[in-house]
Each structure stands twice: as structure tokens, then as C-alpha cells.
């Protein structure tokens, strides 16, 4: 045990010396599963799709390949299961060169999810999902039992088993696509822009579902998208590729947002990367102001006495749920006359990004923080959120060396 640990440390030091970025790319405790080593893809006409790309893709995590069209992200994905053969370089899975195995055996050992699902339109939902188990020689009955199990896992109604793809919505089809990819329980899942063709609401629910499934199964997922928001939402690690198939940056989402490697990455992130980075900071330690929260029926003098001079106060019902804002000087106690309190944030669950957003939406500049049951815990203004951001950044910077893989705030 001690010996292997020692070797691991030496290996890490070695990797660190050769390529500092690659060394940082794999978080502690995660086995490198897919190793892309100096891989290039050049076509006969001279186009370079992928240019000397090296990536270490860890197990039990979602690695997102993101970039503009023509950056070689899909090509890279398809080289892993040899739908495209590299011109040079090597790809290893679990240490073994992917060329060592017959190509169809290799592909059956990796799940693949494609844009628009690519379901077999002539087969029922159940038989679509059972495809790979059948190819692996399972009996029809066992394959179908497994398929039914997976329908449940991806949140499909069992009544859909006998339906054909045309009878499903786009989102349902994509769920079937994910179930089909998981059917033979492969350790690796390759996903090629799987959620690009569905509407934003459905995409959101598919992303959440994927994160849930990943939490249960812990696959090595390689996910291709051109959407940076999607990459940030689902990725444990993000590889940003630039046109011409070169790696621009490979890091955790919050690191990419807070310190983009170069102007290309910065531009690709868009103009609001600072705000988006707040998605990774929790509202748990936000200092909420309780002095301006009063249950309905409180004494007016007490209100104007305790709250800061001239500031509006938040009135709650007897259970502590928010009712609305009031000016303690002029409010007559009529609940109907309160100013609406706007959307709230859930303390601990929502990120500072949500809290900041709520302060912007609030008529008073104060966002209402509630607990899981909707009871008011306090209010916070933009200055309070800003202070929380600064202290969270300081803490994060101090913690950075022994940082565990970033745990995302819910939204």
C-alpha cells in the first residue's frame, strides 16, 4: 500500500515537471481512465481537426470538451471509440491502447449518446435500449429486463416500453438515448452534444437528470458541447478547445471562470464570467440581516425603532413566510398594500449568483433568503452579497492546494 502510494507521488511529481497543467488536471483520488497522448487528426485535404492534443480524463467524473465549431471536439470524442482514427498519437483506456481490441468490441464497451438521440425508429423503446446487451449475446428476456430497469433509472414511464420513437417527445427520446448507452453498464460514456436539439427547459431537466444518474453510477463521462453554460453546469473538468483543434485550457469550471488561460478562453466565456463564477459559491455563509424582518401585526414603533432609519422592512405571516415590503413610516398595517417581495433564494442550496440576481430583481435592493420550507431567514443587499463573494474567494484561495473536486451549488 505504502509502496504504491509512493510510486503515485513520484508519478505525479514527474507529470508535474513535464506538464504542470496535465498534473493539475486530475484531482486527487481519481484514476486516469482515458489518456489521450499527443493525438492529431489531419485530413487528406490538409485540414487539421485536432492538433497534438493531450488530455487525461479521470474516472468517476464528467469531462466536458467545449469550443466553437471546427475545434475538433467531436473528432476527439470519436477517436476514443475509433469512429475516427487518429493520424498520429495514442489513446489509451485503462492503460491499454484502443487499437489493441477489435473495434466493435471496443465500441460495445463504451456508451454513446448522440445529438437527436439517433434512436432506431423501427424498434420499440425497450428494444432500442436492449440493443447493446443483445449484441453482447444476452438472451432477449434478460436484455429486456435490463432495459426496463434502465427506463426507470432515466425517469421514463414504464408504459412507454412498447412505444416507437415517433411517439416520444424530443426530451423523452434523449432519455431513451441515455438509457441505451448505459444498457451494458459500460465504464465510459461518450456524449456528443446530446442535449443541443431540445428546448432550454427540457435541456435543464436532462442536465439535472444526468448529474443525478452520474451521482448514482459514477461513470467516466466525456461530454461534447459548444455551450459554455452547459459545460459549466455539468462539467467536473472542462477542456476548452480552440479552432484548429488545439487545447486552450483544461481545468475545473470555477478555475476557468476565475482565471481563463488566454484571451481566446476569456472571449469564449462571454462578458459575464465574473457573475457566472458565482454559481460555485454557496449562500451558506451569507450574513443575513434579521433586523428588518417583522411578523405581521408587529408594533409600528418597534418597526421604525429597530430597522435602520427610513429603510423598508419585510413583513412575514405568522409562520415566517414573506408577505411583502413596507415603509415603516407610512404603512397602515394593510397586507394588501405591501410591495411584492419578488423571487427569493434558498440559503445553503442556491448559489451567490442566485442571491445577487434576487437583489437586482428586488424592489428594495434586498433579496429575501428563505429556508427549505419557505420561511424567511433574513434579507441581504448587494453589499452583503459582495462581501460574501470576497470572503468566499479568500477562503477558496487559501484552500486551493488540498481542494477536493468542486461540489456544485444546486443552481
Amino acid at each position: 500500500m505504502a509502496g504504491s502510494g509512493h510510486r503515485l507521488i513520484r508519478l505525479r511529481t514527474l507529470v508535474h515537471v513535464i506538464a504542470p497543467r496535465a498534473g493539475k488536471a486530475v484531482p486527487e483520488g481519481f484514476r486516469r481512465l482515458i489518456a489521450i497522448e499527443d493525438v492529431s487528426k489531419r485530413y487528406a485535404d490538409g485540414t487539421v481537426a485536432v492538433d497534438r492534443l493531450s488530455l487525461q480524463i479521470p474516472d468517476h467524473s464528467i469531462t466536458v470538451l467545449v469550443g466553437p465549431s471546427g475545434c475538433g471536439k467531436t473528432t476527439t470524442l470519436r477517436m476514443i471509440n475509433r469512429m475516427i482514427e487518429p493520424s498520429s498519437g495514442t489513446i489509451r483506456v485503462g492503460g491499454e491502447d484502443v487499437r489493441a481490441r477489435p473495434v466493435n468490441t471496443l465500441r460495445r464497451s463504451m456508451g454513446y449518446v448522440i445529438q437527436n438521440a439517433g434512436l432506431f425508429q423501427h424498434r420499440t423503446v425497450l428494444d432500442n435500449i436492449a440493443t447493446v446487451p443483445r449484441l453482447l449475446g444476452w438472451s432477449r428476456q434478460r436484455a429486456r429486463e435490463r432495459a426496463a430497469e434502465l427506463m426507470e433509472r432515466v425517469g421514463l414511464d414504464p408504459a412507454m416500453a412498447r412505444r416507437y420513437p415517433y411517439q416520444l417527445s424530443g426530451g423523452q427520446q434523449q432519455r431513451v438515448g441515455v438509457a441505451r448507452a448505459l444498457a451494458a453498464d459500460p465504464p465510459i460514456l461518450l456524449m456528443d452534444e446530446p442535449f443541443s436539439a431540445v428546448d432550454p427547459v427540457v435541456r435543464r431537466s436532462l442536465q439535472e437528470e444526468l448529474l443525478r444518474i452520474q451521482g448514482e453510477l459514477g461513470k467516466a463521462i466525456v461530454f461534447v458541447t459548444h455551450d459554455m453554460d452547459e459545460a459549466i453546469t455539468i462539467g467536473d473538468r472542462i477542456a476548452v478547445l480552440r479552432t484548429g483543434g488545439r487545447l486552450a485550457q483544461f481545468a475545473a469550471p470555477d478555475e476557468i471562470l476565475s482565471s481563463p488561460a488566454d484571451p481566446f478562453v476569456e472571449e469564449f466565456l462571454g462578458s459575464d464570467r465574473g457573475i457566472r463564477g458565482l454559481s460555485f459559491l454557496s449562500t451558506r455563509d451569507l450574513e443575513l440581516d434579521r433586523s428588518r424582518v417583522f411578523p405581521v401585526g408587529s408594533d409600528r414603533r418597534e418597526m421604525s425603532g429597530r430597522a435602520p432609519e427610513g429603510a423598508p422592512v419585510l413583513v412575514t405571516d405568522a409562520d415566517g413566510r414573506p408577505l411583502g415590503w413596507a415603509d415603516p413610516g407610512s404603512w397602515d398595517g394593510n397586507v394588501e398594500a405591501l410591495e411584492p417581495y419578488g423571487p427569493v433564494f434558498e440559503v445553503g442550496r442556491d448559489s451567490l449568483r442566485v442571491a445577487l440576481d434576487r437583489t437586482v430583481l428586488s424592489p428594495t435592493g434586498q433579496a429575501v433568503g428563505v429556508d427549505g420550507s419557505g420561511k424567511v431567514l433574513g434579507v441581504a443587499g448587494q453589499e452583503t452579497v459582495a462581501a460574501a463573494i470576497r470572503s468566499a474567494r479568500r477562503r477558496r484561495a487559501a484552500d486551493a492546494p488540498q481542494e477536493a473536486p468542486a461540489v456544485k451549488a444546486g443552481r
Partner: protein
Amino acid sequence: MNGFFDIPSDLQHSYGGLIAVHMQEALVPVLAGLLLALPVGLLCVRHGWLYAPLLWTSTVLYAIPSIAFFVVLIDYTGLTQLTVMIPLCLYSLVVLVPAVVDGIRSVPEETNAAASAMGIGLARRYLQVQLPIAVPAITAGLRVAVASSISLVSVGALIGNQGGLGNLLTTAQLYGRPRLAVSSVVTTAVLAIVIDALLVLLRRVLTPWQPPSGRAAGRSGATPADPAAHTAEGAS
């Protein structure tokens, strides 16, 4: 109706017998044409450059009158049914090869990519994915080929009574019995319609996975546009 089904004995067949001969001479060539078109169509899809010259050749063959074919073929195959069926088979290719090609091309790109990514080999992909999805296009081609073949068989009457129901046309002239000609034409037309209906039925049986078209679309519980299905999706 007198004389309609009363076939002169020199044709050596009853009314039913003539129908059987006619069907055999019409359908066997189309079947052979289909068996030929399936691999040829696949080759045309895999090697795109083959398609244009093949289509061109089959169109030229189609333009050659069957009589001309008979003249050439009689030297080799004599005054037999085979002499009639060979040109019919070649004619069917002009419809069937494009039908197979269109059918295979109708398989969506992502379906092919998904099949390949799941480790489904080329032969298996052709038989288990592409052909089933090509069924609607292929049956559409078959319907045209069969109808044309059923009508063309009658020309065989010109080479020693090898024209099935078409033989009634020459006999009608010979014996001055126009009713036999009417019988020939009507029966041929009815046969063509019946076989066409059977092909439509066959397609329905083979493709339960196709969305019901037109007015039937509202029947199915959850088409992609169905608001109920959509809401369920959003809620989950």
C-alpha cells in the same frame, strides 16, 4: 357475361390458369429484380460514383422495347416464359435500384452514427437497421414495378402465347371475339389493383413504427407535438 370466362382450348389454360401464368410471369421478374437491387443499391450508397452510371444503364435498358429484347433472347432462351421474364426483370431495376438507394439514404445520419458507435458491424447494420428503415421507400418502388410488370407481361403473346392474359388479345382477334379482349384488359387491371393493395398491406404490417399519416395522426397518444407528453417531460 357470355364468353367472358370461356377460354378457347388452344390456349391450353382455363381462366384461372391464365391468371396463374400471368402472375408468375409478372412477379418472378420483380422478385428477381428486388434481390438484385438490394445489394446493388447498397453498393451504390457505399460507392457513390457507381450510382450515376448504373442508373443511366438501367434507364437505357428500359428504353429498349421488349420486342427487341425478345428478338435477341429467342436465340438463347427460345419461345419460353424466361424470354419474357428477363426483360421484365431488367425493367424493374430502373425503379427498384433508386428505391433501395433512396430507402437506405433515408436513414438519418445520427441513426447510422449511433449504430456504428454501438459496435454494430456493416452487414448487421444493413440487415437490421438500414433495410427495415428503407421498407417504406422500397415498397413504394415495388408498387410501381409490379404494376408495370403486370401490364407488360401481355406483350409475351407475340412470341408464341407466352403473354398470360395477354394471349386473350391475340385470340380475340383470331376468333373475332371482342369479349375476350375485354376480359383480358379488365382482369389485368383488377390483378394490378389487388396486388397493389396487398403491397400496401404488407408495408403496414412491416412498419408499425411509422407515424400514421394525415388525419390518423391525431389518434396516437403522444406525438412529439402532444402538449401532454411535453408537460410530463418538463415536470420530471
